[in-house]
């Protein structure tokens, strides 16, 4: 810390931060555009100018950009002194801006609007013509309106430098500078949506939102958690007139920082889907037509159905809903609703996190690691936010090189120049090329089982008390030695794996490597990806209860209640058919129509995350509470309220008491008695308009304020924002700061963690000192047929987001991926289809990166049920083949090209 003076006032500031950051941290309104806390400084926009004085006698000082200035001990600065320059800068920035705020999606939450006012530009003197540009089609997610651009370079720095995208650039120059793709087309980056928030004005806007637009101040919002995968990114959904309009990022320093993946941002449109179940339905027999049933009668019917029924839980339903089901049917009749193998792997993760000397890595830990090993998990598609974090981790070498030359950490351009292509090491073991290969030191193509063997061997090479592995090739052994040496030499190594390959030994191998790296003082980082938003929560609920879906289906029970779960995605279709055929009574609670629900006697219209509150446990064992954004129509109710008469708080308390590891569930919200000066936290901003008018067509009387499930927030503009509690941190706003940039007002320092701490509580921790080893038995690969491995897609593989139109545009139908040599052997031509054993016929693609004799099968896409596919299959050319309508090969973005040309290696 150093002492400085700004306009005569003394401040203690951190000399490792830049002066802009420190001014913002100390509540000064210093305008800026190009600086971003996650991307550092480049000094381009000139908006954060201040005066720096050489010494006490200096009266004139010199103009400097605060973002490019390291505060120095005794330094004297003035914001006031540069006010005129800042006004001039904004005036010239605005000469070509179209001033189309009334029709601009950014209006009302526009950083440019805020900065223009803040900098004092209110009168326009430029009387020349404005520059105009052509806009581009950028895909289903993002609109392009280049005329609004103020050339701050944030977009290109985010897309290319931060997120590693290659299909976007800055073009032309002087006042004709253009930001776009070289040819029109959909963005390839999985993180393109962050442009919407990174752009300080309306050049890049949320396309689905624009089609169904309202101003920010008319959105009812709540603190929420993404349902797209197991990372649990914090989101801020917005609603108006009963439809979900959009999702924006909600800052959480440890989980998602400032950024979401495109599935998270654009994948929640299923809330408004026509496939929603709007009312509860019932029927007497499988053959009868379902008839509508009133909510109260439906709830009674469910109660009746519960007698003697088994309950099948869900990894995408909240802790509270799952626990309510458990209460309803009793612990003995409560089943996980996922396969035994998946449950076993999740249990294995819990065991590792609890009983191995490892540090459970959050997203920030991932970013801060300086050597990374990914074992058989395609995180770009299964836990995308993790992949963005890994991209940051490889930059640590450059940061270190900069630090050695005393470059400050925020000096983004200088550090990139210095580092050139030198990166912190990233090793990837995968059955196919992945989208992270371009930053990897080396990529080794091997099956999950073989990757597990190599992982175990790495652990042994690091610590020879770990079990050894025999039978590795010479090439594999030298890879093992290289990786072991690199991880050992790292300051903070990170191992990433996950469940998607369905190979339990991978998790244990990852655990062994992390364990081997433990030298008593420091723990290695370990992150294990899980498939769904509450997978780990479900597994925690099943502790001491090994009952998986297979056991449920073979229980012989004649009655079942299925909670938010399409069983056809969990097991082979024939097995599910047999199970359902044997039932006398099937009750399903779900929000969207699916094959399981179609066969039910009783379907209860369940709320989505947007219309209900609850808790998810993410991949790191972090329990995070989400608040409903809006109240659904009366016929749609949360699963909890269908299953139970208890409040969320009561259920949480009972769950905490009943289950190990779950004590913290009672501390996730400030509790029912919460108030601030007698007021609850509002969901609506204080400028929310139309309160008395928006329902006038129904009833001129303003309705009573809707009751909240948690007793913390209200569906109203009345109340006091819960600034003291991160779990209730809603859409940020501060006077003069209407855009998302206002979040710094709630951070410990600009860019730092929230003042109130981070949302969520870790349920799993370890304090293990010894080094226990796993000794998994890994089955040999059979020689019959093609060895199958799963391929996941960010867009399409996940069940709920696949109902969203924008995601469907980016998705494709099921396919298989083959090595070109194998395709030739099978006599396949590019227009052919492939007959998959026990399955239908699907199209295929060729990928150079996958090993001969293996076949990648797309998971979750329509056209194949991956669970129907055994470990090895026979393939044949399909007869009379016609490709499905939604077969869009161009939507499959792979990185095989870079792997082929050797770009993946850091030569």
């Amino acid at each position, binding site marked *: 810390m150093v002492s400085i003076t700004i306009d005569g006032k003394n401040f203690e500031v951190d000399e490792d931060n830049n002066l802009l950051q420190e001014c913002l941290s100390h509540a000064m309104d210093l305008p800026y555009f190009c600086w971003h806390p996650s991307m550092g400084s480049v000094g381009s926009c000139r908006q954060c100018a201040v005066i720096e004085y050489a010494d006490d006698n200096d009266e004139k000082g010199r103009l400097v950009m605060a973002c490019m200035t390291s505060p120095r001990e005794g330094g004297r600065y003035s914001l006031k002194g540069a006010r005129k320059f800042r006004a001039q800068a904004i005036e010239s920035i605005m000469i070509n801006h179209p001033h189309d705020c009334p029709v601009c999606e950014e209006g009302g939450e526009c950083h440019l609007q805020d900065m223009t006012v803040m900098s004092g530009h209110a009168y326009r003197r430029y009387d020349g013509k404005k520059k105009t540009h052509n806009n581009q089609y950028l895909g289903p997610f993002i609109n392009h309106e280049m005329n609004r651009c103020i050339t701050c370079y944030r977009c290109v720095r985010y897309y290319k430098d931060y997120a590693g995208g*290659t299909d976007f*650039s800055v*073009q032309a120059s002087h006042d004709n500078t253009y930001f776009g793709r070289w*040819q029109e*087309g*959909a963005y*390839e980056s999985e993180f393109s949506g962050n442009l919407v928030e990174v752009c300080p004005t309306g050049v890049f806007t949320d396309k689905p939102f624009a089609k169904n637009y309202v101003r920010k101040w008319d959105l009812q919002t709540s603190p929420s958690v993404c349902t797209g995968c197991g990372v649990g990114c914090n989101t801020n959904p917005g609603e108006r007139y009963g439809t979900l309009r959009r999702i924006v990022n909600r800052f959480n320093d440890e989980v998602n920082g400032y950024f979401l993946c495109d599935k998270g941002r654009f994948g929640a449109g299923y809330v408004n889907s026509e496939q929603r179940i709007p009312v509860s339905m019932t029927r007497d027999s499988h053959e009868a037509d379902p008839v509508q049933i009133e909510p109260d009668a439906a709830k009674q019917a469910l109660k009746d159905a519960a007698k003697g029924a088994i309950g099948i839980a869900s990894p995408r339903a909240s802790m509270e809903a799952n626990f309510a089901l458990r209460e309803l049917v009793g612990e003995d009749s409560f089943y996980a609703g996922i396969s035994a193998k998946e449950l076993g792997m999740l249990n294995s993760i819990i065991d590792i996190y609890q009983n191995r000397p490892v540090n459970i890595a959050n997203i920030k830990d991932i970013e801060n690691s300086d050597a990374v090993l990914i074992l058989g998990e395609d995180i770009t598609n299964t836990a995308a936010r993790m992949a963005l974090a890994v991209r940051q981790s490889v930059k640590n070498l450059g940061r270190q090189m900069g630090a050695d030359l005393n470059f400050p950490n925020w000096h983004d351009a200088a550090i990139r120049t210095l580092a050139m292509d030198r990166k912190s090491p990233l090793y990837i073991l995968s059955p196919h090329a992945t989208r992270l290969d371009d930053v990897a030191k080396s990529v080794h193509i091997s099956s999950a089982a073989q990757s597990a063997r190599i992982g175990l061997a790495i652990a042994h090479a690091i610590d020879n008390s770990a079990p050894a592995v025999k039978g590795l090739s010479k090439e594999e052994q030298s890879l093992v030695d290289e990786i072991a040496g690199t991880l050992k030499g790292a300051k903070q190594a990170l191992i990433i794996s996950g469940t998607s390959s369905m190979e339990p030994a991978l998790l244990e191998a990852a655990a062994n490597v992390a364990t081997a790296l433990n030298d008593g003082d420091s723990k290695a980082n370990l992150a294990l990806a899980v498939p769904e938003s509450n997978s780990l929560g479900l597994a925690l609920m099943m502790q001491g209860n090994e009952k998986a879906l297979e056991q449920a289906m073979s229980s012989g029970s004649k009655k079942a209640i299925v909670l938010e779960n399409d069983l056809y995605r969990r097991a082979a279709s024939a097995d599910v058919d047999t199970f359902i055929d044997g039932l006398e009574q099937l009750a399903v609670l779900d929000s969207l129509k699916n094959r399981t629900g179609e066969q039910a006697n009783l379907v209860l219209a369940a709320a989505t995350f947007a219309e209900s509150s609850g808790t998810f446990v993410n991949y790191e064992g972090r329990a995070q509470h989400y608040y409903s954004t809006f109240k659904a129509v009366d016929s749609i109710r949360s699963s909890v309220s269908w299953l139970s008469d208890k409040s969320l708080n009561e259920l949480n308390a009972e769950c905490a008491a009943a289950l190990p590891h779950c004590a913290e569930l009672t501390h996730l919200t400030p509790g029912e008695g919460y108030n601030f000066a007698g007021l609850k936290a509002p969901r609506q901003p204080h400028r929310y308009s139309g309160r008395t008018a928006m329902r006038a067509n129904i009833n001129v009387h303003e309705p009573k304020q809707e009751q909240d499930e948690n007793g913390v927030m209200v569906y109203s503009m009345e109340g006091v924002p819960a600034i003291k509690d991160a779990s209730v941190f809603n859409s940020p706003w501060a006077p003069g700061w209407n855009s998302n940039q206002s979040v710094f007002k709630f951070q410990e320092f600009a860019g730092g963690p929230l003042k109130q701490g981070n949302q969520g509580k870790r349920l799993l921790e370890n304090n293990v000192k010894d080094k226990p080893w796993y000794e998994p038995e890994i089955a040999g690969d059979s020689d019959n047929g093609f060895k199958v491995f799963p391929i996941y897609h960010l867009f399409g593989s996940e069940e709920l987001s696949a109902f969203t139109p924008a995601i469907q545009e980016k998705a494709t139908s099921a396919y298989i991926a083959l090595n070109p040599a194998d395709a030739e052997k099978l006599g396949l031509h590019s227009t052919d289809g492939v007959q998959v054993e026990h399955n239908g016929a699907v199209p295929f693609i060729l*990928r150079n990166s996958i090993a001969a004799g293996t076949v990648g099968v797309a998971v979750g896409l329509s056209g194949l049920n991956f669970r129907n596919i055994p470990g090895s299959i026979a393939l044949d050319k399909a007869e009379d083949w016609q490709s499905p309508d939604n077969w869009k090969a161009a939507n499959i973005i792979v990185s095989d*090209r870079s792997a082929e040309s050797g770009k993946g290696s850091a030569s």
Partner: protein
Amino acid sequence: MTDLIASTALKARQLTEEEIHDIEHEKTHYPYAQAVGLEALKIVQKYQGWVSDESLLAVSEYLDIPPDELEGVATFFNMIFRQPVGKNVILLCDSVACWMLGCDDLQAHITKTLGINYGETTDDDMFTLIPVPCLGDCDRAPSMMVGRELYRNLTTEKIDQIIAEYKSKA
């Protein structure tokens, strides 16, 4: 299968042997392929007259530089032509010394003679007229280049001669 990646239907042009030879020669001068990107575009332009989308894609694939990156560089520099130009590109200096000595009149004269304004190409694809910032020939102003040839101390008569010369060469 590389065609899965490109979200564009464009196909790269096959680089000629001369182009590849020249690019390979330039590669020996720099430790990183990216440095050769602009050189390669110039090489393509030397042989093709301009840099078409197909050419840009060809260079992109040959050097493994994303086309977007190359486009950013290509459109930054004045002398990379991303639109077709005539066989002879007239670079007329319009900076201060030439301006003082009448380059505007010369431009008017060329425009009248050839029927092309700045940025335009004659119908027979013989000439393209482009303004160029100071050619560093101010003591012999006004100056212009046609292709790689420099012409100085220009008058309208001299310009007529030069144009006639190029026309007769065709």
